[in-house]
């Protein structure tokens, strides 16, 4: 089967650094971090104080009725709406039947889950709301988008913790490349700010007490974020036929599993995912100009990821730029790599290296050009975006500038 070229023709996003694609990109270019004191829960009961929440978010600005839609699914619907509009799609019955929706989320409807749990264990009220199941289910974002646009093709949710959205985008990419679908809405979303879930992150002791400082010697951990991002993918032929604007091209996808430890990342697993993505893209490693790193800001990830990049890229590791945009939009778990895909695509399209914010001190174990604290103009022909999840599940995408 011949491989079709797959392009990105629509983008939509809601995040802690911008509630649409333009604002998100401006924040990246300005190295503007959205990390601030937690407001969604009582932070006096938390050991960590900061997160990257979507501030001043009022669901009624976007929805008439959110009875069935938890916050993470709202974010997917909002970003899908922007992406569909941006791609200027004219739905026909044939297109609806040949479009797929593949989204990532790690934890699904946490707020409905927490509300139901509280009610179920309450001494005065032992019953829960009848719409709890459709609110909690992680595939509710896909189901709601399918209903909204009448999309009837293969659609599902992928949950692989912090790699969920890269797995989703990669699967959608392969489906279009192989002719299984004509168009895809893909990406992911997350909103992890329910109180009990934050306590779980507190307990596992990987959240920074101040801010996420990827690759910096004094880094102390990740900062949680939230949001949603949706990409419209289609074959190059389809995009050109309908005169769509093209943001860039997806050319490679690689996946691996560490098979070693449930939370500690494995260098070998990360290397294999990057190598498989390069092989899938049919490009040599020295073509890559920029890597949007997994870059969580934890001691374990950033040094492991640096070492893996050295192994995969050899001496070229010293020529390429590597940054972590999590320093600005936070770690939005199952949605994060969709946010990062958009940062990578726009960086490639605009010839701008997204920066690593909050960087303070060089670490010899992270001796790459991490584009510290300031975006930089540079032509980017090929870019990679990494995601290495708890569970030891890895997913890497490769994008190419479209000209």
């Amino acid at each position, binding site marked *: 089967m011949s491989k079709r070229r797959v392009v990105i023709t629509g983008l939509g996003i809601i995040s802690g650094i911008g509630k649409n694609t333009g604002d998100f990109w401006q924040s990246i270019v300005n190295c503007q971090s959205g990390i601030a004191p937690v407001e969604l829960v009582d932070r006096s009961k938390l050991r960590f104080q900061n997160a990257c929440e979507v501030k001043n978010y009022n669901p009624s600005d976007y929805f008439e009725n959110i009875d*069935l839609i938890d916050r993470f699914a709202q974010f997917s619907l909002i970003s899908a709406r922007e992406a569909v509009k941006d791609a200027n799609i004219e739905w026909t019955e044939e297109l609806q039947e040949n479009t797929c929706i593949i989204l990532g989320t790690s934890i699904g409807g946490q707020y409905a889950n927490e509300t139901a749990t509280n009610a179920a264990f309450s001494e005065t009220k032992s*019953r829960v709301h*009848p*719409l709890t199941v459709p609110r909690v289910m992680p595939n509710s974002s896909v189901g709601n988008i399918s209903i909204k646009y009448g999309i009837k093709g293969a659609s599902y949710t992928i949950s692989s913790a912090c790699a969920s959205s890269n797995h989703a985008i990669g699967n959608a990419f392969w489906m279009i490349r192989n002719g299984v679908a004509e168009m895809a809405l893909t990406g992911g979303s997350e909103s992890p700010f329910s109180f009990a879930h934050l306590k779980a992150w507190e307990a596992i002791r990987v959240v920074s007490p101040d801010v996420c400082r990827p690759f910096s010697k004094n880094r102390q951990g990740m900062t949680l974020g939230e949001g949603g991002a949706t990409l419209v993918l289609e074959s190059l032929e389809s995009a050109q036929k309908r005169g769509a604007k093209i943001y860039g091209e997806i050319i490679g996808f690689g996946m691996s599993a560490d098979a070693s430890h449930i939370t500690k990342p494995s260098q070998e697993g990360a290397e294999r995912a990057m190598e498989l993505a390069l092989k899938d893209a049919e490009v040599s490693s020295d073509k890559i100009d920029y890597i949007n790193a997994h870059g969580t800001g934890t001691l374990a990830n950033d040094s492991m990821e640096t070492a893996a990049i050295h192994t995969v890229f050899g001496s070229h590791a010293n020529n390429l730029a590597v940054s972590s945009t999590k320093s600005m939009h936070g770690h939005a778990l199952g949605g994060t790599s969709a946010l990062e895909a958009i940062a990578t695509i726009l960086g490639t399209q605009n010839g701008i290296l997204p920066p690593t914010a909050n960087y303070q001190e060089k670490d010899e174990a992270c001796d790459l050009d991490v584009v510290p604290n300031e975006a930089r103009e540079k032509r980017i022909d090929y870019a990679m975006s990494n995601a290495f999840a708890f569970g030891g599940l890895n997913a890497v995408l490769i994008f190419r500038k479209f000209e």
Partner: protein
Amino acid sequence: MSDTVFQKVAELVAARVHISPEQVSIDSTFQDLGIDSLVALSLIYDLEDEYQIEIPNEEAMNVQTVRQVVESLGRLGVE
């Protein structure tokens, strides 16, 4: 059949489907009112809250009109 109960049911139905209580009659069907199976579940939840009762499945699953709701509540001792 209790008129007071009907008035309260009409209010709760109206709130669920975003219409005014005057638009709800004793003979309105769920279909007329745009109440699908999930909205019906939410309405039953509201009624349990309002009257501090537990509506068993055999009652909940068999109501398709406002009249049936009021009659069902009557069987459960709500007047």
